[in-house]
Each structure stands twice: as structure tokens, then as C-alpha cells.
């Protein structure tokens, strides 16, 4: 265990606070002795101290608290009335507890603090007749006599497990002795007080009596006995309940109490509103700092420059410090989850073990609150639908007990939280089919999506009905809500899954909401900010490169980024403004949203800076493009782009457009449609054109990774086995065979993929070839003149079947009927259709 010390420390801080509260409560209680609420609250406090001290083996503390609790429980139940004497005894108890806490804090043990007299006093008032008036001396004695009778009656319950039977007796004896000591003291004080009060009315006298005892240290000689009784039997039963311990926030705390010491002084409770206000001010300071630094950058005055550098540094540190005050470990919300998992597991008849990694990871309190519900939802989802029932697991050869893992870590200025299970996983094929069935997607669009993209469909609102969930894979109840919640705090969510092996949902959450690092860009003369959380990389292309690398596909532009087709969104178009970039250069901010990447084309990149997010009015929010606004270094206002909304808006529009185009093409086959073709060399000087929209991805594969299954070649690719067809062999050409890396065109449909190996990827061209010919050969659909060269049009279907004969049979419904293909070789438009 990393810290008994931590536990003790926490206990001390908590107890100090609670005692302060107790002082006030007790005094207030005197005014209003019937307040059940206050009594209950006091009772809980003492009860907690008793429980924790028993647990931590602070026996004397426990003893005091125990007697106090007895008294309080009777007061609470109305069996006894609160008299000033009793109040006083309770206050005395509080003082003793303080003294004990101080000793514990100083030495780690209870030291030499004497508790016997306090216990006696408490026991005495406990036994007191209900007479609410002054404690007459004679009654004190009988009280003592009754102690032994009373204590053992209670004790056995508590000391059941105590090995030493004589313990109760000893304790009784211990109590008896000090009680006797205490008794004689009372008259002395009373006498002293009496002269001071001319007309000694019983009540004021009684008030005086208890006021005195705590002060003088009663030289009692019995304490030796006390530590000897060891009954900690009760300890495990009483972990403190956190909820009960938290005092009212905003409660005025009295100034320094004599009992409080280092530990208590080292922490302080602060109103969250105050922290919010501080955070705002720091935000303003950061902005002003940015302005000054920018301004000073143009100055030559050395002193000014130095001062501004220091300002820069201090502001950063201040910002960090204030941010830290708002940070809380994620464990605060995780701590409730084991129970959730356990209960739900029992309910579903599954055995699930919850593991947590990185529970000390801290993030902003507000964010923590915001993440709580989505996280709980994800955990429930994982237990409910992710982890399979025990029987299924054993049948699948997995350990019967499912494991749910929560991971949290800091990663480049964000907090990454993962909820991972080792359950059945999500099958992208089923998800995709469901999405099509529900009309959320066309089979077309689906066929272009990678399995990873398809998984993100579970976040679509239409997916969140129970029927979809049970039919498909048991995922998606309210996933769209989870997503909305996460996005509302500027976070992102994505899901990964390996069928049969498990699912992992990953949240990326900004550290704090108020100040975020952002990229400032320019578009059409205005500046905008993009939160860094969405930014992956920046690509700048000069005019020449841009012309070659940025392609138009069915009215949408794409850029081939390291072999992957990156859809491009032109910010100027989205904003409906004319771009002021006319030199052909293209600047792309590669952004990630919902697990998908896209490129945002901007006019130019300006800077990265820390921005303070300012709320904008409802009218601005409703536009659905801006998540807020900020004030830049020079004082100008800049809008913060809502990347998620942007992606949704732009990419959806683009998809719709493409689909329209495709529908049009299928209706009027005669109409030549503009079609992008991928040109590839296959060796022997032959060139083949492949419709670009059938291409999922371009990859390079090392030739030594190619393995054989029977007579077929396969390669392991993203956790699946990818069959390969070598186009040169397929078409009877003679390419080089001994190259180290193979250029591969991956084609995926309904979760199955094949790889077509070509010699070299040459170009992407406009396929509006006017000269078509039906001169063809096996595996071809015809030929055309593209770029002054005769180019063969690949029969993609045949090529794919050569690699994977079962490719189309698995998902026949979603596939257009083969009749759509003009295999007679007459229509070279045939490959333009969706394959």
C-alpha cells in the first residue's frame, strides 16, 4: 500500500474540518436544541471519526468518539435532552479529539493525550437523569456508579471479535477511575464560579461548570491502562462514507483554530466560483500577455524586451498554477464504476473484472463532471453488450471472466480516456449493413469506407435504437448522446474493435475548457482558430505539386497523403467567401473528426497560440460552424471553427453530391460522365486504368511479407488476411518480379478486401476519354486513349474475383446485379459504374 500515511493525512484534514463545523453546530444547537438535522450531522461526524480511528487503530480516539456517539445517538433519538452540561461535555469531547488529532499529526501516534476524564464526563452526562437543570453534585456520584453497568451492556457488541474477554471490564475500570477524579473537580469549580454570580440561578451555574474542566490538564494516572485494551474488532465495518463527510460548501469557516496544524493548514477549500473567476482573469492576462509580447517583438528597447519575457514566463506559470487548482484526478469519477460494473455484471449474469490504469490522471473539474455520465454510459455498454456471457466466452476459448479496462493518460496536451473490453467486438460488416438498411448510408458510400470508418457509424443518431443494437452487435444505445456530450466539451470520441477480441472506445478531452492551444489560420482575409485537439498535421504544397497531388473526384477534391485518399474541404467554399490565394499553393490542415481524417484547405497558416474561448451568442452557435470566438494577440476577434460540425457539414454534402452524380450516371449510361481513373503501369509498357472510386486505399507492401495460402498469395493487413492479385500475371504481362516493395491498390467492400498489385502507380487522370475501343482481352473491359496513350480499362470485378472468388458472394444483396455490366465490351462506361 502506497500510503497509510495518505489515509491518515486525509483523515486528519477531514476531521479538522468536521470538527470546526461541529463547534459551530454544537453552539447553534444550544439555541435550538431540537434541531434533528444538526444533531444528525454531528452524530455522523463523530460516527465517522470513530469508524476511521478504529480502522486506523487509534484506540483512544475511538473510545472518546464511541462514548460521544452513544450520547449523541440518545440525544438524536430524543431519549435524552440536550442540556448545557451535555453540550459542554460534547465540546469537551471535541477538544479532546482535537488534542488527539494534533498528537497523531505530530507523532503519528496518539501520544500522551489523556482521554479518560473526557470519557468519564461523557459517560456521566449520558447516565444523567433527564433533569435539564444544573447537575447537582450528589448526582455525579451515582452516575459514576452506573458506568460499569452501562458500558458492558454496549461493549460486547463492539468487542465480539476481541480476543481478550476481560477487555470490557478493564475499560469499565478505566472509566470508573477518571470519573471519580472528575467528580470531585466539579464542586471546586462550582465554588469558584459561585461568588462571581451574585444570584446563582441554577442554569447559569451549570453553564459555568462545564466551561472550566477542559482547561486544566487533569493529572490522571490511569492512562497506562487505556492503550492496553485493543479491541479494534469494529474497524472493518466502518469505512467513512465520503458523502457524509463533505461539509456544506461555502460555509463560513472560522479563523485559525488553535487545534489546527500543519496538515489542515496545507489545504484549503475554495469556492469553485472563485476559481472560475480567477481562471477568467488569468485568461485575460494571457491574452494581454500575447498582445504585449507581439508588440514588444517590434521594439528594440532591451529592458522592455526583458520585462516582457519575464511577463511571458510568469503569466505562463500563473496560468498553469491556476489550472492546477481546478484539476482533480479522474479517480473521482472512476471510483463509482467498480460498483456499476459489479451490479450490472450480476444483473446480466456475467463475470466482469474492472481494471483501471492511470487513475491519478488529472483534468479540469468542470470537464470531469461533464465526462462522468458519458463514461458511465460507455462502461455500462461494455458490460451489457461488449462482454459476452460466460458460456459464450468459454466456448470461444476465452477466460470466463471478462476484463473491462479503463485507461487514462495525458497525451500532447489532452487527456485520453479509454474504455476497453475483451468482449465480442463489433463487426463492421453488420454495422454497415444495418446502416444501409436504415437508410443512413447508400451501399455505394459504404463500399468506399474502411472498416474503421464504418465502426464510427455507431455514433450516428439513427443507430441509437434498441432494435438496431440487439440486431447488430449490441452497441449503440445512446452512443450519439455520448458523442454529443463529449463534443460539447471540445472532446472527440472514436471506437476501435477487433471482432472476437474486444472493443475500445477512446475519448480525447482537452485539459481545460477555458484556455486551449489553437492554430490560427487565414481564409479570405479573415483569421480563424482551429483547436489543436483536432489538428494532426499541416501540409503545404506549392503550385506545381498541388496541381499534381490534389485531384477532383466526382466534384470533390482529394489529396493523396502517404497513399491514403484524404478528402479535402475548402474552407472558403464552406464559408461562401472567395479565397484570396491565387498562386495555386495549397495549404492543408489535416484534421481528425470522429475517427476520420479530412483536409481543410485554408489560405495560409499564421501561428499557434493559446486562445481563451469566449462564448458567442446563440445566433452564432446556430450557424453550426463556430464553437466560439476568441480575442487574438492584436485584439482582433477571431472565430473558432467547430471541426466536427465542419466535417459533418462538408463531408456529408460531398457524399450526397457524389451519390447524385452516380445515380445520374446509372440512369443514362449513354451520357459520358467525368470519371477519375487511376493509371497504373503493369509492366511490359502496358498501362491500365482503374476507376478511382473503387479504390479504397493505396499502399506499399514489402514483398517478403507476402505469404501463400495454397496457390494464392496473401498478405497480412490491418489484422486481416488480404488476398493478392498481381495484375501483371492476371493480364498476362511481364513485370519485374523481384522488387522489394509492391505497389498495392486496396479495394474493400462489405468488410472484405483484396489487394491488386501493380508495378507503378502513375497518375490519376480525368477519364473522359473520347476514344474508346472494344479491343480487349481477358480481364479487360476495353481500351481507351488517355493522355495520348492507349490504356486498358481493367475489369475490376474479374480482377477481384481472381484474388478472392468469394468476394461478392458474401454480400450479394448490397451489390448491383452483374447485369449492370456491359461485359460484351460495347460500353466502355461499364467500369465507371459502381463495381
Amino acid at each position, binding site marked *: 500500500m502506497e500510503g497509510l500515511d495518505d489515509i491518515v493525512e486525509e483523515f486528519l484534514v477531514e476531521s479538522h474540518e468536521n470538527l470546526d463545523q461541529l463547534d459551530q453546530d454544537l453552539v447553534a444547537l444550544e439555541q435550538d436544541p431540537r434541531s434533528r438535522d444538526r444533531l444528525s450531522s454531528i452524530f455522523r461526524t463523530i460516527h465517522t471519526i470513530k469508524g476511521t480511528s478504529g480502522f486506523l487503530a487509534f484506540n483512544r480516539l475511538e473510545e472518546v468518539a464511541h462514548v460521544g456517539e452513544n450520547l449523541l445517538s440518545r440525544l438524536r433519538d430524543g431519549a435524552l435532552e440536550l442540556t448545557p452540561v451535555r453540550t459542554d461535555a460534547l465540546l469537551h469531547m471535541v477538544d479532546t479529539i482535537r488534542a488527539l488529532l494534533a498528537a497523531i499529526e505530530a507523532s503519528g501516534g496518539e501520544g500522551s493525550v489523556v482521554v479518560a476524564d473526557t470519557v468519564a464526563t461523557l459517560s456521566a452526562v449520558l447516565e444523567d437523569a433527564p433533569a435539564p437543570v444544573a447537575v447537582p453534585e450528589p448526582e455525579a456520584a451515582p452516575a459514576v456508579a452506573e458506568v460499569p453497568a452501562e458500558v458492558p451492556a454496549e461493549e460486547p457488541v463492539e468487542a465480539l471479535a476481541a480476543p481478550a474477554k476481560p477487555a470490557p471490564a478493564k475499560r469499565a475500570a478505566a472509566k470508573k477511575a477518571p470519573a471519580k477524579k472528575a467528580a470531585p473537580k466539579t464542586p471546586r469549580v462550582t465554588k469558584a464560579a459561585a461568588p462571581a454570580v451574585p444570584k446563582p440561578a441554577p442554569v447559569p451555574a451549570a453553564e459555568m461548570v462545564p466551561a472550566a474542566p477542559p482547561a486544566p490538564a487533569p493529572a490522571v494516572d490511569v492512562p497506562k491502562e487505556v492503550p492496553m485494551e485493543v479491541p479494534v474488532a469494529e474497524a472493518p465495518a466502518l469505512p467513512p462514507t465520503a458523502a457524509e463527510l463533505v461539509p456544506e460548501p461555502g460555509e463560513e469557516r472560522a479563523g485559525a483554530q488553535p487545534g489546527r496544524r500543519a496538515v489542515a493548514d496545507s489545504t484549503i477549500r475554495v469556492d469553485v466560483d472563485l476559481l472560475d473567476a480567477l481562471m477568467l482573469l488569468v485568461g485575460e492576462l494571457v491574452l494581454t500577455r500575447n498582445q504585449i509580447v507581439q508588440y514588444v517583438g517590434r521594439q528594440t528597447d532591451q529592458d522592455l524586451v526583458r520585462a516582457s519575457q519575464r511577463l511571458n514566463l510568469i503569466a505562463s506559470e500563473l496560468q498553469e498554477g491556476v489550472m492546477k487548482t481546478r484539476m482533480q484526478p479522474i479517480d473521482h469519477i472512476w471510483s463509482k464504476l467498480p460498483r456499476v460494473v459489479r451490479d450490472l455484471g450480476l444483473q446480466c449474469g456475467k463475470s466482469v473484472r474492472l481494471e483501471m490504469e492511470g487513475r491519478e490522471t488529472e483534468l479540469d473539474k468542470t470537464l470531469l463532471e461533464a465526462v462522468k455520465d458519458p463514461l458511465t454510459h460507455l462502461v455500462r455498454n461494455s458490460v451489457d453488450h461488449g462482454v459476452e456471457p460466460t458460456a459464450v466466452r468459454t466456448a470461444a476459448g476465452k477466460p470466463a471472466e471478462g476484463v473491462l479496462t479503463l485507461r487514462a493518460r495525458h497525451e500532447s496536451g489532452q487527456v485520453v480516456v479509454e474504455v476497453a473490453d475483451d468482449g465480442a467486438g463489433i463487426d463492421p460488416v453488420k454495422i454497415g449493413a444495418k446502416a444501409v438498411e436504415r437508410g443512413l448510408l447508400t451501399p455505394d458510400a459504404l463500399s468506399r469506407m474502411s472498416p474503421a470508418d464504418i465502426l464510427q457509424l455507431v455514433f450516428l443518431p439513427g443507430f441509437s435504437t434498441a432494435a438496431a443494437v440487439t440486431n447488430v452487435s449490441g452497441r449503440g444505445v445512446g452512443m450519439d448522446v455520448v458523442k454529443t456530450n463529449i463534443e460539447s466539451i471540445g472532446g472527440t470520441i472514436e471506437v476501435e474493435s477487433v471482432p472476437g477480441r474486444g472493443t475500445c472506445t477512446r475519448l480525447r478531452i482537452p485539459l481545460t475548457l477555458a484556455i486551449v492551444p489553437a492554430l490560427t489560420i487565414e481564409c479570405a482575409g479573415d483569421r480563424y482558430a482551429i483547436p489543436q485537439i483536432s489538428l494532426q498535421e499541416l501540409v503545404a504544397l506549392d503550385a506545381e505539386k498541388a496541381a499534381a497531388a490534389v485531384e477532383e473526384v466526382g466534384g470533390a477534391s482529394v489529396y493523396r497523403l502517404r497513399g491514403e485518399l484524404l478528402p479535402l474541404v475548402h474552407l472558403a467554399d464552406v464559408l461562401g467567401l472567395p479565397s484570396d490565394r491565387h498562386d495555386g499553393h495549397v495549404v492543408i490542415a489535416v484534421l481528425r473528426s470522429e475517427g476520420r481524417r479530412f483536409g481543410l484547405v485554408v489560405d495560409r497558416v499564421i501561428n499557434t497560440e493559446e486562445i481563451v474561448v469566449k462564448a458567442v*451568442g446563440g445566433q452564432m452557435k446556430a450557424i453550426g460552424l463556430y464553437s466560439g470566438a476568441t480575442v487574438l494577440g492584436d485584439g482582433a*476577434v477571431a472565430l473558432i471553427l467547430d471541426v466536427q460540425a465542419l466535417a459533418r457539414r462538408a463531408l456529408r454534402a460531398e457524399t450526397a453530391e457524389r451519390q447524385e452524380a452516380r445515380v445520374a450516371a446509372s440512369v443514362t449510361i449513354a451520357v459520358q460522365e467525368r470519371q477519375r481513373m487511376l493509371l497504373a503501369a503493369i509492366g511490359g509498357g502496358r498501362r491500365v486504368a482503374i476507376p478511382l472510386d473503387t479504390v479504397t486505399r493505396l499502399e506499399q507492401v514489402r514483398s517478403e511479407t507476402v505469404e501463400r495460402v495454397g496457390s494464392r498469395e496473401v498478405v497480412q493487413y490491418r489484422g486481416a488476411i488480404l488476398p493478392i492479385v498481381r495484375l501483371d500475371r492476371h493480364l498476362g504481362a511481364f513485370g519485374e518480379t523481384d522488387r522489394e516493395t509492391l505497389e498495392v491498390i486496396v479495394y474493400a467492400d462489405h468488410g472484405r478486401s483484396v489487394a491488386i498489385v501493380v508495378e507503378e502507380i502513375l497518375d490519376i487522370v480525368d477519364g473522359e476519354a473520347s476514344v474508346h475501343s472494344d479491343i480487349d482481352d481477358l480481364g479487360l473491359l476495353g481500351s481507351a486513349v488517355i493522355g495520348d496513350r492507349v490504356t486498358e480499362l481493367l475489369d475490376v470485378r474479374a480482377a477481384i474475383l481472381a484474388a478472392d472468388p468469394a468476394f461478392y458472394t458474401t454480400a450479394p444483396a448490397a451489390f448491383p446485379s452483374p447485369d449492370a455490366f456491359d461485359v460484351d465490351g460495347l460500353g466502355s462506361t461499364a467500369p465507371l459504374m459502381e463495381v
Partner: protein
Amino acid sequence: MSTATEARTVPATSQLATFWLDGDLYGVEVEHVQEVLRSQSITRVPLAPPAVAGLINLRGQVVTAIELRERLSRPARPEGEQPVVIVVRLHGEAVSLLVDSIADVVDVDVRDFEARRTRSTVRPAS
């Protein structure tokens, strides 16, 4: 005072901050007016409703600017004429109105009010 029974919310006399817009005089209740500014740089908001002129930095606070000429269906302000910004606070939220120029603060007796005849103007009868 005599009208107090009739309209509790409107005091007997009310103060209006008046301003010019396309040759007409308009007024807003003075207690809503937070301040009047000149020559603010405005950040336009693409795709916003036409009446939204953009955003203004008001000492660190981002405030939406409404072009009143557009809002009240008046012709656009001539080129080169700088608008004056009236910052009003309504329901705790600051909004700024772009007007041609600011005029006096006038006291208007409530009895002089007439029911409005046009869509969205309240003209003090003088």
C-alpha cells in the same frame, strides 16, 4: 405618476438615448445602454444572418454587432461612413447596435407615447 396604474413598467417619464439612422431619429431606453463606442474593428461572421455585422472585442468580451440598417430594412450605410456602436445590455447579455450617429438623451413623458405604427420603431413624439 398619474399613469402609474396604467403601465407599471413604464415610469412617468422615461429617458431615451437617441440616434440617427438613415435620416430618422430613433431611441432606446437609456437604462439598457451600457456605452457608446466609435470606430471598432468588426470581425465578420460568414453565413451569419444578414443583420449580424460581426463580432466586436469589448475589453476582452466578444459582443455581437447588429447592423440596425439591415435589421430595420434600411438601405446600407454609404461607403466610407463609420458606424457608431451602441452597446446595450439585455438579460445580462451585451449586444451592440450599429447606427449612423448618436444624438441626445431626451426625457419623454409617458403620456406622449403613441402606439407604434411601424414594424419596429418607437418614435418619441416631440
